[in-house]
């Protein structure tokens, strides 16, 4: 069973990792937009 759980956990870790990277990119863009507005 440990291999089964490892595979399912790895799947969701990869997806969550990618979604986190999207959130980080989105926040960076928001910061850049705000900085551009201040100029």
């Amino acid at each position, binding site marked *: *069973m440990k*291999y*089964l759980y490892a595979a*399912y956990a*790895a799947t969701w870790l*990869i*997806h969550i990792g*990618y979604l986190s990277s999207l959130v980080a990119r*989105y926040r960076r863009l928001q910061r850049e937009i705000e900085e*551009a507005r201040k100029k």
Partner: protein
Amino acid sequence: MKRAFPIFALITAGLLSFALYQALVVAPTEQTMGDVQRIFYYHVPSAWTAFILFFTNLVASIVYLVRRNLKADAVAVVSAEVGLVFLTVNLVTGPIWARPVWGIWWTWDWRLTSTLGVWVIYVSYLMLRRFSASTQTPVLASVMGIFGAACVPFVYFSIWYFRTQHPSPVIGRGGELDPRMAHVLLINWLAFSCFAFLVCWSRYRLERVRREVEETQALEALLETRSVR
């Protein structure tokens, strides 16, 4: 559209939970491999979803090359990136399944090696997108996307025409999958397809905003240069 996204996200979350329940509880236990065979319900739909996204990348790349359509270029980069995530899941879950069943994590047979080859092609595609500043980058990336998609049928058919460690097709030619297992497999594929669509939707919006910001920054830099002169 703003209201559609959270509704679709809720439906997808429900579908993924239902699919997980089906895979872990409802699907019958395979006689030879036991419970570890349930990795199949994540391993196979991830590969199918990745291949659909690479096909989307192929179509978008061709549209960009023919019409120089920037929306098609954005769709191409989004589908390649999300497709690569799903192929990574396939490549990670495969060895975790192989270890208890074959006794080894990896073998350099046709199916595994060609899958890894396609993965490397799309990593290169995204690195080209990320690090090249040339105006010809979308054209080069489109050609690379077409090449990558052309390699996908080789991955799929490798288990038909070569002797490999990998099992034969479970659906279609030579497939003898239990109908209850096939049912759970299709539910999981539907759930992962909806999830992929949702992620692509978010990533596409991000890509459009990123391009607008880059265009604005380039315009500002140009105006600053002119004012200095």
